[in-house]
């Protein structure tokens, strides 16, 4: 199988890479671009630790073929942390006590980020739905809804 050149926009930066047609976006992010924030947990969309945002939508990057991401905008957890400043969602995840082993956290943060991108005032049901693809063995995501609420508050503060 021959490699194919693709262009991705990762965290606002254009990247040109050669990928094998069977390679996942997760592999490209972690192994070609050194972005290890998205984690690997199962390889079949069962745990959500690989969640990243593609054109505004949360996806399992382990099941997302890299070539399908051609020309698309990808945001990973690294992309939220800019100029030494935590994104409101990241700060909220700390303050809501979500962090234990941390392995599920980048994926959960990206699910939260995608939710708020499309829906700045989510209902409890929307929040449940947004995290339906994320497992967390340390706390089962007990504090995640609280983190969403805090993030909304921090975002409003940032705007004012």
């Amino acid at each position: 199988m021959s490699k194919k050149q693709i262009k991705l926009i990762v965290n606002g930066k254009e990247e040109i890479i050669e990928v094998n047609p069977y390679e996942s976006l997760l592999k490209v992010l972690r192994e070609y671009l050194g972005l290890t924030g998205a984690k690997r947990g199962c390889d079949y969309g069962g745990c959500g630790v690989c969640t990243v945002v593609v054109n505004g939508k949360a996806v399992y990057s382990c099941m997302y073929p890299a070539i399908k991401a051609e020309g698309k905008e990808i945001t990973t957890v690294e992309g939220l942390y800019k100029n030494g400043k935590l994104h409101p969602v990241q700060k909220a995840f700390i303050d809501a006590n979500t962090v234990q082993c941390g392995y599920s956290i980048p994926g959960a943060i990206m699910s939260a980020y995608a939710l708020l991108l499309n829906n700045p005032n989510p209902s409890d049901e929307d929040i449940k739905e947004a995290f339906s693809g994320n497992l967390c063995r340390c706390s089962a995501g007990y504090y995640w809804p609280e983190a969403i609420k805090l993030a909304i508050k921090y975002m409003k503060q940032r705007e004012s």
Partner: protein
Amino acid sequence: MNKQALIEEIEKQYYIIGKPVERIDAKPKVTGEAIYGYDLVFPKMLYGKIKHSSIPHGIIKRIDTSKAESLPGVRAVITGKDIPDHRYGLVLFDRYLIAKDRVRFIGEAVAAVAADTPEIAEKAVNLIEVEYEELPAVFDPEEAIKQDAPILHPDLRKYGTSKVSAPWIPFDMPNLNNYRRVVFGNVEESFKKSDVIVENIYETSMVQHAHLEPQSCVCIYNYDDTFTVYTSTQTPFRLRFELSLALNVPENRIRVVSPYVGGGFGNKLTIYAEPIACILSKKTRRPVKIVLTREEVFTFTTVRPPTRIYVKDGASRDGKILARQVRFYINGGAYSGGSGIAVYTYLAAQALATYKPESVKFEAFSIYTNLPPQGPLRGVGPAILDFAFERQMDILAKKLGLDPIEIRLRNISKQGEENIYGEIVDEDYSKVLLTAYDALMKKIKESNEEPTHPWKRGIGYALSSKYSLAPTASSATVKLREDGVIEVFIGSTEIGMGNYTAMQQIVAEEFQIPMERVSIAAAADTEFSPFDEAQMSSRTTVSLGNALVLACRKLKRKIAEYAANKLNEDPDHLEVKEGFVVSKRNPDKKIRLEDLFARGKIRTGTFLEGEGELIASANWFIQAGIDKETGRIYDKYGNKVFERVVNFYTPTGVASEVWVNVETGHIKVKRLVTVVDAGKVINPKLVEGQIIGGSAMGISIALFEGLQWQNGYALNPNFADYKLIQHADLPEIIAIATETPLPHGPFGARGVGEAGLLVSDAIPNAVSNAIGKEVKKIPLMPEYILKLLAE
């Protein structure tokens, strides 16, 4: 410490103990900067892959690796022939790192490959041909002890064992690999006196840890004939020991380094792919990385073993348990699983600590079967046995017309008295139970939500206690750096509990300096870190915390002695606090810590005067044990042979409200209160996180979890078919930490990492209460509930 001094210690205003300090690992974890074992890459690194057995029991007749070897990109292929003739284990040395002649479960390693890419390695593994001669297999512990059962380890009696914790096999029983007995009083006589007898059989399922970071290691064979092993582990030091056995290499030739660990829950307490990667690295002279797939985590690593528990209780009319007789069968799998065979056999019996019947006879049998090996899982034995014991309490209460809280209170081990093993009780069991009860009642009153058909409400409690094992030890080293920062060296890994933060807080407290003035330096590297047993058994806060307090106090004394000359003051009158050494009788006599050695810069650079740095180390160790025949600290003649069986207990009281749909069998946990006695809370945020996390896992185990097998083949080794609790299934959880000081805990603290899991023992009671039928096995699958309802 006497009681008065203890109370004073607890009541004094703390500098930072008890404050909700932000975790020091929070920021790297939310930005994606935290590096886990899974993330590591090295120059020239190869990728390893394991070939697993495809049958549950058999002899390896032939392995053909030629096709794999000729695949381009393959750098090495190894089989049982390439490994030392040495078995490894922690307690019982019963396993080769790759099967040599015989396989005993599906998942066991039979060969391995190192290749340029993971894809090539996978292809190569599929090209390896293995021919087996199948042997009869056995999957049930009570089948495996029958006289005509297939014997998994005919040479068991010849295997090496640990010197300190060898298994006990006092009689011949097929496939028995460990046994424990507790004999207290005379159950025969107590049964005769009993007004009621309740006898039941309980079953628990096979549970997988399902930590989200699969095991991952990079092993490097170095030019000087040493190995460097980067791996995701809860125990760098034990791992080094097991590796040394498996590889037949002295421990001083192995260095184990562990970065952040993406969860462990007991699974990462033994070796898996590490020795295989070591051999592959030695063969190829290149670093070799092996990451397990999710399916491998389910089938190749350890599990919480399925168990069957026979309990017979005799009680008096007023609800006092007179006799408790237990037979506990552990479906232990094909190998000893590191410390697996010790925790379920030896330590599980500590579940009996909570209550004090007049007499007890307990027997635990750990049995080989052709399934994955047993390994510790958060809450280990008590979480399993207390399911049975707490069910018994409710069934007894019902029979006697007593309140479930009342019957428990009538039977608890009382503070200041001896428990059934002879240990002096310093736990307050009634407090955790009553606190849980009150909090739930208040919650229910506040809400006016009432279930309507087909939902039925049930309330259930559990009173339980998580032991922390002993003997155990932790060492710690603290150093005053020339810049005044206190640098901490510990051998503990951060698997998620927040122990680095809590340990940093303890040092900050001792020196009364802000968190930023303390730095946790080389953590979890056997080359530089002082010894620590493992991150397990809720032991770190007490064990390592104590070692740190001792080390800090030594260092403060050293600093005072060193500063005495400079300040022209008697060291006994000097105090080290808030970044200064200061005289207690003349506060003007003081010096900043960073001024102790530094004299500033000269033209050619910087130099330090005097000692340059001050360093102190301490080891904290606790002795413990039992007389084997009695299972207590007293032998049968009444001589005391040990002071304690375990380090301490963490009492836990749970109150739960569930709603059961009597048409579908579905269960909703509506409200949950988990009360854990933390002794003294070091950091309320961390303690709450542990209680909530343990509770969530406890609900998950009670309601959903079971790894299913058919003839040795796993039916659901993936997240689609093995259900774990998710955020949407969670009720509101009220986490409460009570504080009954542990006399020998740092600042009175106890460990709280596992206790929340004991929630799994309350939910079955609530469900039984809702449906009016007695639940006797977990998980509580809807089909099972419907079956009970139809009876």
